[in-house]
């Protein structure tokens, strides 16, 4: 098993990038940070499937491709299916002895945005997890359909303004809760499920390596701050992600074999969610006096979720 060393950042920086520049993602987009990190975290050959979304439309604009590995673009819902099929074919051809280079280490990865993971590709993802293919599904969660103009998805959190859940005099944005995809995937009994963030590069690289190493279907939900739809300055991508992890809006944790929960990052100083919400334009309306109660509601839910995670980690069940 060949894996790049991630002891420290200097060691990690000797990895040779396999995700090229001049893709057309927005300046400061966290998608490419996450994809780069995955591809730098391993020396193995990668077979990657992307379903429709920002990542796909920006990295393979004809006549260019930004991928230095095997990469396929497929329909909005099918990244998990494509990766699963490629994996099945690889296994079958290995068994029949028709592979030119059967000993080469190959890993199968699927990338999807939150729209294609939480909503449109959910059924296909669930199917692939149930069938137990040896692949890793990575969700780049930017909490809306950013590619098509920022519509709400089931990953959009309460109170966020989106183009189809607008904030105004009668509404404070999306009123429904965010779907807890990590728990849903853990409930499939997947051997490795995690929620990671690009600002904590080490836990992220370790999580990726663990998922690639683990046999069976693995799922990773990554926080991908969207400068365009979350409405912050492109230079602040990492700062906003820091706020997200330190305010516990995005706790970083892993669940092994569907039950063993480990918290991977405990902020030294937990900051109020208000700081995180205030850094983004999509939550601007919540600071009006009439919507103040929504911030308190979000804070309460975040605290409850953190309490739950800690209890589950202690219980070791």
């Amino acid at each position, binding site marked *: 098993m060949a894996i790049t060393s991630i002891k420290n950042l200097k060691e990690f*920086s000797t990895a040779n990038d396999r995700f090229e520049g001049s893709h057309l993602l927005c300046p400061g987009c966290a998608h490419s940070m996450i994809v780069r990190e995955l591809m730098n975290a391993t020396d193995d050959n990668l077979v990657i499937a992307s379903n429709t979304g920002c990542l796909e439309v920006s990295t393979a604009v004809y006549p260019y491709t930004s991928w*230095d590995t095997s990469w396929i673009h497929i329909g909005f819902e099918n990244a998990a299916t494509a990766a699963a099929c490629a994996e099945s074919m690889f296994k079958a051809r290995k068994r029949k002895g028709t592979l030119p280079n059967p000993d080469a280490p190959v890993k199968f990865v699927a990338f999807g945005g939150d729209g294609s993971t939480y909503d449109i590709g959910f059924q296909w993802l669930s199917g692939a997890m149930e069938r137990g293919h040896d692949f890793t599904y990575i969700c780049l969660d930017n909490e809306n359909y950013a590619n098509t103009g920022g519509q709400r998805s089931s990953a959009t959190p309460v109170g966020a303004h989106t183009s189809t859940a607008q904030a105004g005099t009668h509404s404070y944005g999306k009123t429904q809760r965010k779907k807890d995809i990590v728990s849903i995937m853990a409930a499939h009994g997947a051997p490795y499920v995690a929620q990671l963030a690009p600002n904590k590069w080490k836990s992220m690289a370790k999580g990726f390596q663990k998922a690639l190493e683990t046999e069976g279907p693995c799922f990773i939900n990554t926080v991908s701050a969207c400068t365009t739809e979350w409405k912050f300055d492109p230079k602040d991508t990492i700062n906003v992600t820091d706020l997200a992890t330190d305010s516990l809006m995005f706790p970083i944790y892993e669940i092994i074999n569907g039950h063993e929960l480990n918290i991977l990052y405990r902020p030294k100083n937990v900051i109020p969610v208000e700081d995180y919400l205030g850094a983004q334009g999509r939550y601007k309306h919540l600071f009006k006096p009439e919507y103040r109660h929504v911030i308190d509601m979000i804070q309460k839910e975040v605290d409850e979720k953190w309490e739950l995670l800690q209890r589950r980690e202690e219980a070791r069940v």
Partner: protein
Amino acid sequence: MSTGVLGTEKRGIRELGAEEKVGWDEVTRGVVLDSFEGDATDIVHKKAEERNYSDFNSYTATVASWRIIKPVYNRDICIDCQNCWVWCPDTSIISRDKQMLGIDYDHCKGCGVCVEVCPTNPKSLLMYSEATDNDEALAGWPQKEKKEKK
């Protein structure tokens, strides 16, 4: 005769099943772009300058025209922490043998993330307007900021 779905003869395009009749269980049409010329089996151990990129690889393209501000790099202050390398979204920080060498201005979009994550004092990367000359920027580099005691 079909000229293919894209009607182009650019080098390296392989069309799948453009001319023959295909059954229900075969792929009809699609395009494969090769990222590299020739053998590409050991790409992971090759640095960018050793690779044989094809015309289809976006490495050969540039997005420099997107930029209105650009990062300028000051080697004298840099401590090679590689924060900018790990968080650059555009693969534009050139790092070799644990050393930061500079910025790839063909691929940089000027987002400014590298400046934000730079831990030195003063910062070893700063944003300047695209028209600024790099040497001029380096000559007028800010001094170390003293921490105010509270």
